[in-house]
């Protein structure tokens, strides 16, 4: 594979002595769609600002297409950004906004206008060039911001929660458009979001961040299936997080001893057992090939496409996800069996 378009090595950033980013390592390949995902305050926006050049890290390097840009000012970096609130220039028309980048690169007015027209066409806003940003809807402003950022054909585009100001329906629509445009242009997108569904939908790889560190990097479904940490298991999708007690013989006990698993290859330190709700089969009897745990139904919550069934196993709680058709004959207080497979259970570092 060719050299990564973005290579971050050991990046650290502090704000007033408080670490905001700690030892970040990240590589982005050409044409990749990467989501920086995490709760607010996890450092994802700080990382984006370091890459764009608005913040200078205390340690580490940032390379763009092989060139060290760590100390370069933003205007010397060959990348562009779609800002959270678009940051369109209010005193310029849409066409002038989009032509701003080429003009600053010293491109002649006519050629800049032509490129701006092309970029606007790409985002479906031909004919809006003469308007002022204030005369556009939120969705249209978002597209102008995108057109303005891609008109220079950067090899890397940074997007700082660009869809957070749009309503849900529009967001879904813009998401798929964004993905199409990214495919057409073949440039790498680094997309900041706190919405795990958005990250799962759009990204080739997700960079999951927490507390200024990267928790896990991987394809969304891989992180879901094989979370590396307790945080990753909890943040991506729903999970039953079970307390793990290490036994003297090296095995682990979960659910007050109802479950015992060998833990020879488990990481050291405190562990959490992760069991996805859809991996639990609730039935009135044991299911062949599975481990049957006696349980009592405590509550059934209907969520439309499925139902969440809360179970009590001993003193512990488990949540199972069932299709509505599988609910027949189930009711609160009913003794059932939670049928699980030990292969679905993952032990990850971190206390439950």
């Amino acid at each position, binding site marked *: 594979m060719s050299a990564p378009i973005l290579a971050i090595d050991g990046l650290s950033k502090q704000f007033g002595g408080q670490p905001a980013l700690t030892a970040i390592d990240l590589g982005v390949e050409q044409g990749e769609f990467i989501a920086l995902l995490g709760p607010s305050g996890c450092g994802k926006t700080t990382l984006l600002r370091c890459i*764009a*050049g608005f913040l200078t890290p205390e340690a580490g390097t940032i390379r763009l297409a092989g060139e060290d840009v760590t100390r370069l000012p933003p*205007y010397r970096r060959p990348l562009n*950004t779609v800002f959270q609130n678009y*940051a369109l220039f*209010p*005193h310029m*028309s849409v066409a002038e906004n989009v032509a701003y980048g080429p003009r*600053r690169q010293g491109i002649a007015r006519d050629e800049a206008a032509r490129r701006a027209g092309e970029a606007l066409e790409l985002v479906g806003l031909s004919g809006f060039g003469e308007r002022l940003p204030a005369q556009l809807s939120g969705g249209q402003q978002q597209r102008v911001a995108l057109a303005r950022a891609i008109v*220079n054909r950067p090899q890397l585009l940074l997007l700082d929660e660009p869809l957070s100001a749009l309503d849900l329906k529009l967001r879904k629509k813009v998401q798929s458009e964004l993905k199409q445009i990214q495919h057409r242009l073949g440039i790498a997108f680094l997309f900041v979001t706190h919405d795990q569904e958005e990250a799962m939908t759009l990204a080739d790889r997700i960079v999951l961040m927490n507390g200024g560190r990267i928790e896990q990097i991987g394809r969304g479904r891989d992180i879901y299936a094989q979370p590396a940490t307790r945080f990753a298991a909890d943040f991506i999708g729903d999970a039953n997080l079970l307390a793990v007690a290490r036994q003297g013989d090296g095995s682990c006990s979960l659910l007050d001893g109802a479950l015992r698993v060998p833990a020879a290859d488990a990481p050291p330190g405190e562990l959490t057992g992760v069991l996805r709700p859809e991996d639990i089969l609730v039935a009135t009897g044991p299911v062949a090939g599975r481990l049957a745990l006696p349980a009592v139904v405590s509550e059934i919550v209907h969520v439309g496409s499925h139902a969440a069934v809360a179970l009590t196993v001993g003193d512990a709680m488990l949540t199972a996800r069932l299709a509505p058709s599988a609910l027949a004959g189930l009711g609160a207080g009913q003794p059932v069996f939670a049928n699980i497979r030990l292969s679905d259970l993952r032990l990850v570092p971190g206390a439950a």
Partner: protein
Amino acid sequence: MSGTLRPVVLLCALPAAFFVAFFLAPMAVVLIASLATPAGQPTAAHYLRILADAYHWDVLWVTFRIGALTTLVCVLIGYPLAWYLVRIVRWRPWRRFCVILLVVPLFTSNIVRSFGWMVLLGRNGLVNDGLIGLGVIERPMRFLGTELGILIGLVYILLPFIVLAVGNALAKVDPALEHASADLGATPAGTFRTIIFPLSLPGLMAGAVMVFMLAVSAYVTPALLSGGRITVFSMLIFQQYSSVFDFNYGGALSITMLVLTLALVAIAGRIGEPRRA
């Protein structure tokens, strides 16, 4: 319907009455007087007299020249000062102190401050002593009774207006716009030229218009610092009202001044007008 309309009418009537009583009516009185003989007969003679008299044109020229220069110097000093206060000062107590320093003189009388400048700008005043001490000049310079002296006094008194207007405009420029500009490849100077300055222009124009109007209509400062050697238009008007008691001619002078000032301001206002598509 009328039950909900009546309070609205009453609410509007109060400020409207205030406006009529204190702004429209006095203006109308002056305007009518300017178009009448002392006996009350309608006439345009006062205006013809102003237009025909070269002395009035000279005084108008001096007045507007001082006004324009005052505005220019206020802009040249005020914009960087506002920039310093809004963009460079990070320590809030110091910024607050600077703003107080700027605003407090507005609470003291023009007369007191202009007298202060008379003392400072005199033959043996602080300014001359300082310039001689620094070796810039050998003999005391004449400030009092020159346009330079009036200019210094007016700039000092009117500077806060432009600093406040520009500072307000600069503070409103979203920092994200500067980031976006830098992100698109603009140098800091380019960002200032294409983004920040155009966005602060309405504030700058508002401040400049205010300074120009106040400078052109100023009476106390030019009167005290002119030493009787320079006459500005407001002094002519004052003479007509206070010494000659020719209210009709004084009115015509006032209206002439008003119309010319508004015309200039209207022309200037076009420059700072926000764009419409």
